[in-house]
């Protein structure tokens, strides 16, 4: 009796005793914790019935909840709930939310898009995304291009023309620039003379004698540079041949060459080996016409548009 009374006033033990008097306290977890635990167990069971849960053989229990989405072929599909379908659904919703803007871009002429501040803001943000995903690998993030690799889109010099229609054409169908190698045709001296002539066009202080000889060579049938670059050496945008009279260089790194001999060497190297690497891929298979139109405005806005 005394034992019972003592127990009721003290901390409970589990009732086991070892070695005569070694006992274990019974300190149960708080009741609220216990109930929270039961409720979460219950919630887990409810979850099994709603969402995919248990692996069964090679498959799994799918749960009763369903999700309806439109797949890439435009077919409406209803399936058990899963995150992949949820992603497609939410992605479709995001595309639908963007659609009014793309529609507006598609329906308006180019110059009106640029003049509408709100639409222009959309072009700047959406265009930046498209440009980063598709163009920046070669033309760099801001469109500044890379010497000897991809043209700068932010200046006012265009190999294939800087009007909206030219840019759209370039993105849609791609470009392939070609210049034949002259190593077999010209002697080293002739190439130096040609290089001096080309450099003199953009006001570099080269040997005037040599440049004069280059001038003759440029317009002769031996080198026949004028076929592509034009008699005035300003290039022909139909062919994509470069304008040699301005301060902008793509393949010969003239701006970074400190001395005239180095500049000559850079130009000569292009004359000697020719060019077959100015390749821009076609985008009509990867981008929709609206995306290309938006990119056209964006590239035009980069600063170089005519």
């Amino acid at each position, binding site marked *: 009796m005394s*034992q019972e009374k*003592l127990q009721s*006033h*003290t*901390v409970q033990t589990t009732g086991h005793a070892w070695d005569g*008097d070694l*006992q274990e306290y019974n300190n149960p977890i708080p009741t609220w914790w216990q109930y929270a635990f039961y409720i979460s167990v219950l919630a887990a069971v409810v979850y099994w019935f709603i969402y995919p849960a248990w692996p069964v053989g090679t498959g799994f229990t799918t749960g009763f909840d369903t999700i309806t989405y439109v797949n890439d072929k435009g077919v409406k599909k209803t399936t058990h709930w899963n995150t992949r379908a949820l992603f497609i659904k939410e992605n479709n919703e995001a595309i639908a939310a963007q659609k009014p803007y793309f529609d507006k871009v598609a329906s308006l002429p180019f110059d009106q898009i*640029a*003049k509408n*501040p*709100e639409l*222009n*803001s959309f072009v*700047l*943000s959406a265009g930046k995304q498209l440009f980063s995903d598709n163009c920046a690998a070669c033309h*760099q*993030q*801001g*469109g*500044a291009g890379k010497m000897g690799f991809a043209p*700068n889109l*932010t*200046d*006012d*010099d265009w190999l294939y023309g800087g009007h909206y229609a030219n840019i759209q054409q370039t993105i849609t169908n791609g470009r392939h620039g070609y210049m034949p190698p002259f190593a077999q045709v010209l002697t080293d001296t002739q190439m130096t003379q040609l290089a001096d002539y080309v450099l003199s066009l953009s006001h570099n202080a080269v040997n005037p004698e040599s440049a004069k000889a280059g001038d003759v060579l440029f317009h002769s049938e031996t080198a026949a540079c004028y076929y592509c670059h034009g008699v005035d050496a300003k290039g022909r945008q139909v062919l994509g041949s470069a*304008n040699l009279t*301005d*301060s*902008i260089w793509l393949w010969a790194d003239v*701006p970074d060459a400190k001395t005239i001999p180095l500049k000559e060497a850079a130009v000569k190297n292009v004359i000697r080996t020719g060019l077959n690497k100015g390749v821009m891929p076609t985008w009509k298979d990867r981008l929709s016409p609206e995306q290309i139109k938006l990119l056209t405005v964006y590239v035009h*806005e980069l*600063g*170089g548009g005519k």
Partner: protein
Amino acid sequence: MNVGIEEPRALYQKRIPIVTRSVKGRFRNFKWGVMVLAYAVYFGLPWLPWTREGVASQAIMFDLGQRRFFIFDLVMYPQNVFWLALLLFIAAIVLFFATTLIGRAFCGYFCFQTLWTDIFVWIEKLVQGERPARIRLQRQPWNKEKILKLGATHTLWVLLSFWTGMTFVLYYGYAPDLLARFFTGHAAYAAYVTVFSLTVSTYAAAGLMREQICAYVCPYGRFQSVMYDPETMAVAYDAKRGDATQGRAAPKGELKIREVRQNKGYGDCIDCGFCVQVCPAGIDIRDGLQYACISCGLCIDACNTIMDSVGYPRGLIRYDSEANLAKPVPAKPRIDWMRPKVLGYSILLSVMTGALIYSIASRTTFEHDVQQIRQPLYVVLSNGDIRNRYQIRLTNKSNKDMRYRITTQGLPHGALDLDEGQAVTVHSGNSVVVQASIKLTPQQVGKYPRFDFVITPLSQPKDKAIEQVNFYSRKNEQ
């Protein structure tokens, strides 16, 4: 068999329900006044109309979707979150300042926990009657009367809680429209969740938990206690006068006469217990200042009522400071301003309030942000000219459409080229990004390392903003 067995100690004292008696007096009247005003403001504001262009005509509206807060004629944008931060700082200092001077005045008169508990107790009294009736009802077994009265009380509580939650949500939309949508099931999911959780929490906090919120949940109540000084005015029982040398005594027989009591060494406290019965925190103020005291002043009202009825002077329980009460003969209680802490708080308070008022008063109607395009930093054009480009973001914060003119100063004429022309229209509450090109000849480049963009709202030319920017070229790099 009691080796290793310790004495049990309860970690938590089971709550004894507090049934308060109502009381009349100065502090009670003040509390009613605050309550009427606070409820009128809280429940009424969402319904106050205000004329605005293109936006719902509601005086106070927090438009989360458009990220704009309308407060009368003030429109706040996320950029202005600084004001909210400053306001919270000011509120904190006001709390410190008031606590140092007059103790937990916020808790007792202005805290929403106190306000809502007060109204819940008022409902309880309205349905179930005064304190003795309520205690009787609590003790009696469940019958028709108890079910009816308790049911009515809780129903009214839930209704008030619901309207409290509903009103909170109404601040986030156009009230009449939102209310209609709410009851037709067309409101946003978040609205239902908010109303539900606020209903539950109001009901639980003001109806069921009451003083436990102040004692166990609220951090402010606890940390205000450490701001008390000996000079702080607080609700206090004058023990010297109340207990004297012989203690308290009921006014029976000759002890009714004050002179007799004083000669026999009895204090003025007649031990009626009224001050305890009216206390919403369930404490006995005669035990001295306690953490649970929310400083509501109801015990002062109670004691004054009793003192009046027995004909003793008022103020046995009163607002007084510890320092004053400790004096052999306490002086007339007064608020002690001349303390470094109080002066420090008031200086802080005026500086911060001034800063907030200045910041709001000098707000611009538009936000501008000029950023140089850094990829590439500069472009060499075919004729050798250098071009820099800048993105100018304009946000129209006014309630009407605005036109802005963008010009430059400190540059040769003709250097600026804007895609959109010289002026840009921005709709109310919208943002627009404008691209500006600056072109300089190689000879000019070195002379203009930096210049200013001037953005002028055409309708308010004096609000023009000037932003200095750099012009980069190959020369800056080397």
